């Protein structure tokens, strides 16, 4: 059973592309020493989930920005909505900018409204920053089709260039500024139509806006009034009748979700919030890469030394413990991939540290076994006693580490504790490390010791039989 689990984990833990390097004995392992490279392409699983490492910003490079939203101009009741709108706008902008998986988190605490933005792999921080820093611009523009001959001309011009269809579509309408902007809008809200019970967006204009909106809707009845956020079209409802009250609704085949989304975007214009950079961290990709390489090399050398030490001190059992350690490492990596743990540099340190600690359970058990043997107990009993009695102290001792790791991770997002990605990264790997260390140390080593050490020689055959039975 354990073997099957192990093989599955190995499979998951394998990198997508695995260059195998062969080294001759005797030469110390040198990474620059190039040897025949064999590439294996292995997808993590037939289910289309790919087991990739998520890399933290400190590894793949990128930008982390903490922004402060200035809410002094926004009425108290609207502040939460305004913050949500700013978040939405920033997310939209970085999406358009082409950043994959941007993270934008909003938080408010003690009257402080903040946004944390994480952009992985940004190469031009200055540009990214100016992109994010702008206050949202909402405009209402009339959309009218261009007259036929104009259209023919522009289409001809467009087909001469590449990317014909898109530009042709854009060129076939004309945008007319109306002077109506986000400043005239008081608020947008998702509502339900009292008659049809369908979701719709209701707009409320201020005094000035109501007048302007009334004029526009009277003069251009039947035409389309496009709503633009940051110069790109959000939607283009058509004007059904003149609206003079400053209260408008946009109907359509909207779902509740869409209505909410639209309101948030509209509010970005209606409730303009200036933002200010509180904290900025930009890490170039090269620094992270180098550090990862170094850390992993350090980790491997460390594991090698630990294995050597275990074998020297505990002999045959040391070999088994090292085997358990190897399985532990593979399980850990597999779990990282399954849970999608974001790897950060402190996280890698946490992993390396937990490998060192994982041996602890084994050492406790082996020492206990030695003692029981010294006390004159036969081998089999000494072994079982060793596992049984050591368990108590292993359990007690690890509880404190687990509690500390939990405080570092702050899973409930208490505002009085940290939420820093780096600290969490370390906490998470430490927690996974300790819990898994307990499992492998106790369950796997015990199984291995039972299988291989009781009946010397036939251990391997026994093992094979067991696997067959399990299947």
């Amino acid at each position: 059973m354990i073997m099957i689990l192990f093989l599955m984990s190995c499979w998951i833990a394998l990198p997508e592309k695995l260059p195998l390097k062969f080294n001759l004995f005797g030469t110390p392992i040198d990474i620059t020493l190039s040897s025949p490279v064999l590439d294996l392409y292995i997808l993590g699983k037939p289910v289309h989930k790919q087991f990739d490492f998520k890399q933290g910003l400190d590894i793949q490079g990128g930008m982390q920005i903490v922004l402060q939203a200035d809410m002094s101009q926004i009425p108290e009741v609207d502040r939460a909505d305004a913050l949500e709108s700013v978040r939405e706008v920033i997310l939209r902008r970085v999406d358009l900018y082409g950043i994959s998986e941007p993270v934008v988190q909003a938080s408010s605490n003690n009257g402080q409204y903040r946004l944390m933005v994480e952009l992985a792999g940004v190469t031009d921080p200055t540009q990214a920053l100016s992109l994010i820093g702008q206050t949202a611009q909402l405009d209402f523009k009339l959309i009218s089709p261009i007259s036929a001959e104009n259209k023919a001309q522009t289409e001809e011009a467009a087909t001469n260039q590449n990317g014909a269809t898109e530009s042709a579509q854009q060129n076939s309408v004309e945008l007319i500024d109306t002077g109506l902007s986000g400043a005239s809008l008081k608020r947008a809200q998702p509502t339900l139509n009292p008659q049809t019970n369908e979701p719709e967006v209701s707009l409320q204009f201020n005094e000035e806006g109501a007048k302007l909106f009334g004029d526009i809707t009277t003069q251009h009845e039947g035409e389309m009034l496009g709503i633009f956020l940051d110069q790109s079209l959000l939607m283009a409802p058509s004007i059904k009748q003149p609206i003079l009250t400053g209260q408008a609704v946009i109907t359509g085949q909207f779902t509740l979700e869409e209505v909410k989304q639209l309101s948030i975007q509209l509010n970005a214009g209606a409730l303009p919030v200036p933002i200010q950079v509180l904290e900025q961290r930009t890490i170039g990709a090269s620094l992270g890469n180098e550090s990862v390489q170094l850390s992993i090399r350090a980790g491997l050398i460390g594991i090698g030394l630990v294995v050597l030490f275990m074998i020297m001190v505990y002999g045959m059992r040391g070999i088994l413990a090292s085997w358990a350690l190897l399985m532990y490492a593979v399980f850990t990596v597999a779990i990282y991939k399954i849970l999608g743990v974001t790897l950060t540099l402190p996280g890698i340190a946490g992993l390396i540290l937990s490998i060192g600690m994982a041996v602890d359970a084994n050492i406790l058990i082996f020492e206990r076994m030695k003692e029981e043997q010294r006390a004159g107990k036969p081998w089999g009993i000494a072994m079982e006693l060793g596992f049984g009695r050591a368990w108590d102290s292993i359990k007690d001792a690890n509880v404190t580490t687990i509690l500390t790791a939990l405080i570092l991770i702050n899973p409930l997002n208490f505002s009085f504790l940290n939420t820093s990605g780096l600290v969490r990264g370390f906490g998470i790997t430490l927690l996974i490390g300790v819990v898994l260390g307990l499992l492998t140390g106790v369950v796997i080593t015990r199984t291995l010791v039972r299988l291989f050490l009781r009946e010397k020689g036939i251990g391997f055959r026994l093992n094979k039989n067991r696997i067959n039975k399990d299947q």
Partner: protein
Amino acid sequence: MNIIKYRYLYFVISLVFLIPGIFSLLRYGLKPAIDFVGGSLIEVRLPENQSLNYGQVAELVDSDFGLNAVQQSGSGQFMIKAKEIDENQKNNLIAQLQSQYGEVEVLRFESVGPSISRELLSKTLTAVGLVSIIIAIYVWRQFKDIKFGVTAVLAMFHDSLILLGSFSLLGHFYGVEVDILFVTAMLTTLSFSVHDTIVVYDRIRELKRKYPRVEFENLANTAVLETLSRSINNSVTIIVMLSALVLLGGNTIRWFSTALLIGAITGTYSSSFTAVPLLVEWNKRFK
């Protein structure tokens, strides 16, 4: 072998390590990183063995920049520390550096405002307090005896003080700063310290049940002796892993690993040689 008999020696050894640290803490304090006090940091890589010093950077920036220090952080890599500056000020400096040195690569740029750093400081202190309290309560409950809880926590403070003291000294002599990762390392040290202490205490409890008549000092001594090889072997593995990280792991997490390493060493020592002797002493004096 009677280890506990020499307990005053261990107290002296602890003091030898504690006093310089405490002195340095009082005298020089810790060097807080921008995480806690705000400010900015630019790390750059210069082409081809060129170097940068404070004077050279100071000539390029005005007083608004608030240049604080320029340190070498690797071969051809330099850290420029200043007041909280914005993207434009940074870009200006980099442009000027590039005109003088050629292709200058910005490895990282961090700028932290004062309000954020103040919050972080209070959050950090909360976390440290919380961890200490939880651990104390846990040990207390586990051993149902105030002696065990208090001495375990005292040993824990001993380790934290040594760690803080070392970083105060490192800060004074090598400009090592205390950042959020240091605090993380310290919290981990707290749990390390108790981890080992619990293993020894567990053994004392077990022996006490088995031989209720034997004198406490002897029991404690046997427990320490019996767990010592485990304790040392276990620490060796952790120390090996951490030393590898400190020596080979790159700059970014070097001091973090160093803090963990110091914590692991003192945590191991304090369990057998601080916590248990304190426990024995307590038992003797307040029976």
